[in-house]
């Protein structure tokens, strides 16, 4: 199958307007004849469900949490970008587009990114109208802050809880439609299979997590808004429940998975403290404005920070990148921390940590100023670690944060399977090989509020309301049987090891071999080890309890089983991409100074993988990326 991105012709700035006019519409009276399933209720899923219901479609929305308000979009701290230019500092739609393409290390689609920048301004208006309490100045106008990768202030925020407030805005719009009977909400329900017939997505099979009941749901289109796959590493800043199952099930039914190796590792997280650790906590990137990053010059130095004299400290970011210093981009800061720890100079238990030191800032600015800027973060750090950052440096280490890869979609956000749409972090489309701060929220809401409600109409209008497959069709019965057989298999292995123990082992392989830095030998080793682990999983898994009831271990088993296949796909993608770009750093491909070296001649494409059967190598399809407006350059932060 060829990959047609369906990018409209014409000048970049006119593509979206032109496309909106050219798309077919569904008459208002006919919209109620169409059913749409939305899986996931985060920013993308909730905004899509609400907007589609407002238009008049029948919407069913599914989430695994006990309420749609709890999706992990809620944890985003910093803010949301929009090209409003309220600050009169030279921002524009084009500049936001340009910064995003460059920040993505020239691996994103120009047309998608430009549309994202265009609708970004509408998002802020929509959210303000919903009552999102954005930060304001004394004149009552909205204020902005600046963020990495941009030289303008375009980030809107609501204290340190921007994601929470935006999600509650989308949740309230969704709740209104539930109350009006326009959305049928299914909480504590997990999608376990996609139903495909005649090459079209027709519905899903889900499991009620409270009763264990399996049910089938049919629709004219299925929208996946199921987030990222960072939890393949076990430890990440994702919520515990985040998983790849919906996306991976769709992949096994024919949807291509694009650029799975693009993962974002955030440099400032609280380090792992023991093998019981369940997740990692992010400390806002803003700390690097006033904190200095260092490690001891000597290997294995276990002295307290305060006992290490100035001349025995290595402020390695300032040393290596004198002009950007501690404010280099996320991927570079993360890799540098790994480097010094690999040299044996990391600090704290296990040597996996570096100091983030506010001593000098406190001396220079006074404790009051530092406290005004960062006190809430310092308190959070102390709550988790028990250490007081006013008295001793913080210890930080990089952690998996976001995944740029996802299911392949065209300009309409439809996958290569007709009728299967993918929005938000779950698709691959807008961030290339690296996402800029404050852009995830923007993309989730752009997709859900403004892009999908338009593009799905075009698909439905052409499909016609007669073209629906009911749940009594054999395709549903088949998928239903598959799901039940798989669940029974988990329960009947009756081995010795818990799902978590396999997940942790997989996470370690992924982190060591497909983490911040990758190389050929390591990836090949992972591609051998993961199938071995998978084999053991299917022989030695232990799931207590039964299937027809609440069973949290059974839920985990299903998610880990998919991660065990998906992790291998990530490694294969990382192995084939013989270049370094954004979050993907191949040690073989670096400049003499140790910086990422792209190979634009051979790899300026989207790598989309097709599933070819269990234990068979997947097939790569390429979508060449055409840059008509932006010139490709090498990033430098020296």
């Amino acid at each position, binding site marked *: 199958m060829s990959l047609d991105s369906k990018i409209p012709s014409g000048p970049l700035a006119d593509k979206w307007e032109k496309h909106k006019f050219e798309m077919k519409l569904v008459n208002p009276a006919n919209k109620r004849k169409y059913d749409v399933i939305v899986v996931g209720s985060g920013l993308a899923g909730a905004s899509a469900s609400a907007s589609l219901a407002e238009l008049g479609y029948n919407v069913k929305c599914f989430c695994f949490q006990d309420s749609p308000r709890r999706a992990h979009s809620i*944890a985003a701290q910093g803010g949301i970008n929009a090209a409003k230019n309220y600050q009169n500092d030279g921002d524009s739609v084009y500049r936001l587009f340009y910064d995003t393409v460059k920040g993505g290390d020239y691996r994103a689609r120009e047309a998608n990114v430009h549309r994202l920048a265009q609708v970004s301004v509408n998002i802020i208006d929509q959210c303000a109208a919903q009552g999102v309490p954005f930060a304001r100045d004394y004149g009552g106008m909205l204020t902005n802050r600046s963020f990495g990768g941009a030289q303008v202030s375009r980030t809107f925020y609501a204290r340190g809880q921007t994601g929470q407030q935006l999600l509650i805005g989308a949740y309230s719009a969704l*709740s209104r439609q539930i109350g009006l009977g326009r959305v049928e909400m299914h909480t504590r329900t997990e999608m376990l299979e996609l139903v495909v017939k005649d090459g079209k997505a027709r519905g899903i099979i889900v499991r009620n997590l409270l009763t264990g009941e399996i049910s089938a749901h049919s629709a004219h289109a299925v929208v996946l808004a199921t987030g990222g796959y960072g939890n393949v590493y076990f430890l990440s800043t994702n919520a*515990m429940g985040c998983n790849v199952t919906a996306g991976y099930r769709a992949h096994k039914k024919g949807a291509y998975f694009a650029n799975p190796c693009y993962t974002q590792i955030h440099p400032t997280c609280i380090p792992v403290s023991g093998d019981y650790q369940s997740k990692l906590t992010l400390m806002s990137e803003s700390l690097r404005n006033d904190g200095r990053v260092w490690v001891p010059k000597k290997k294995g130095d276990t002295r307290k920070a305060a006992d290490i004299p100035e001349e025995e400290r290595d402020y390695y970011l300032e040393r290596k990148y004198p002009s950007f210093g501690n404010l280099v981009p996320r991927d570079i800061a993360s890799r540098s921390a790994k480097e010094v720890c690999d040299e044996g100079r990391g600090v704290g238990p296990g040597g996996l940590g570096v100091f983030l030191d506010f001593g000098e800032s406190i001396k220079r600015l006074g404790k009051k100023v530092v406290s005004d800027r960062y006190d809430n973060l310092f308190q959070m750090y102390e709550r988790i670690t028990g250490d007081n950052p006013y008295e001793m440096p913080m210890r930080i280490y990089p952690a998996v944060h976001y995944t740029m890869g996802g299911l392949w979609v065209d300009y309409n956000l439809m996958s290569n399977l007709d009728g299967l749409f993918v929005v938000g972090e779950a698709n691959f489309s807008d961030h290339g090989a690296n996402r800029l701060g404050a852009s995830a929220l923007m993309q989730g809401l752009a997709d859900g509020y403004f892009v999908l409600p338009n593009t799905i109409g075009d698909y439905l209008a052409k499909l016609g309301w007669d073209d629906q497959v009911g749940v009594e069709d054999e395709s549903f019965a088949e998928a239903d049987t598959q799901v039940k057989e798989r669940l029974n298999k988990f329960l009947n292995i009756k081995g010795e090891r818990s799902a978590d123990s396999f997940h942790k082992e997989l996470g370690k392989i992924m982190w060591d071999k497909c983490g911040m830095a990758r190389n050929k030998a390591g990836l090949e080793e992972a591609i051998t080890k993961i199938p071995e682990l998978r084999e053991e999983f299917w022989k030695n898994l232990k799931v207590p309890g039964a299937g027809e009831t609440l069973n949290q271990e059974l839920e985990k088993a299903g998610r880990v089983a998919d991660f065990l296949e998906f992790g291998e796909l990530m490694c294969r993608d990382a192995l084939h991409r013989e270049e370094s770009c954004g979050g993907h750093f191949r040690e073989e491909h670096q400049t003499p100074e140790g910086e990422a070296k792209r190979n634009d001649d051979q790899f300026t494409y989207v790598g989309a993988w097709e599933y070819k059967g269990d234990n068979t190598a997947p097939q790569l399809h390429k979508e060449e990326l055409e840059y008509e407006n932006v010139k490709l350059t090498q990033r430098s932060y020296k």
Partner: protein
Amino acid sequence: MNLTVKVWRQRGPNEKGKMVAYPVVASEHMSFLEMIDVLNESLVEKGEEPIAFDHDCREGICGMCSMVIDGVPHGPERATTTCQLHMRKFKDGDTIHVEPWRAAAFPVVRDLMVDRSAFDRIIQKGGFISANTGTAPDANEIPISKDLADMAMDAAQCIGCGACVASCKNASAMLFVSAKVSHLNLLPQGRPEATRRAQAMVSQMDSEGFGNCTNQYECEAACPKEISVKFIAKMNRDYLSTSIKEPVKV
């Protein structure tokens, strides 16, 4: 540290529950939920069913975790959710009691999990501003004073965990409902629906079986986001002043 953890075990909503004691070896660096993870892992190893509990983000913002620890929702540390509570707040040899939220409107699902869908139904009645996608004016069209925006944000911080209900001897949901009513009614965008919102949400709250407020302020003390009880007074004013003068059919 060696602990005895006594946990409420209950198979289902209509079954009888009881406290069961488990020995746990924990580290002071663990979060409370990681301590429960360790306990669960040991139960799975023995082939027993692990303790069911709700949790997700584990960074204090999703509102999913919900344990009454030694009689206090979210445990002994102020302004902290269960997931952010760490074991260094306990001592070696301690016996810790862990129970679910207890309220008629939050029936126990299993063990430490409860059904909080009543909160969603209250929001569905009026916890929104009716602004369809695409209808919004420019975000700076309506200036909102910083003080007002800040106060709305103070109320909007609610994470919907239900600790306010769990802490209240009447199982009242007044703090939760008033935080949402205040967030939206304070803002000019929310004024057109202010009357209907207050009445509809209060009416749904009553029909869900939450109790009344008797001004003990346990809710504010238990709230991980320290939401102020002043919002309850504000909602009462919005509700009373309009339910008599301009009753809305809800």
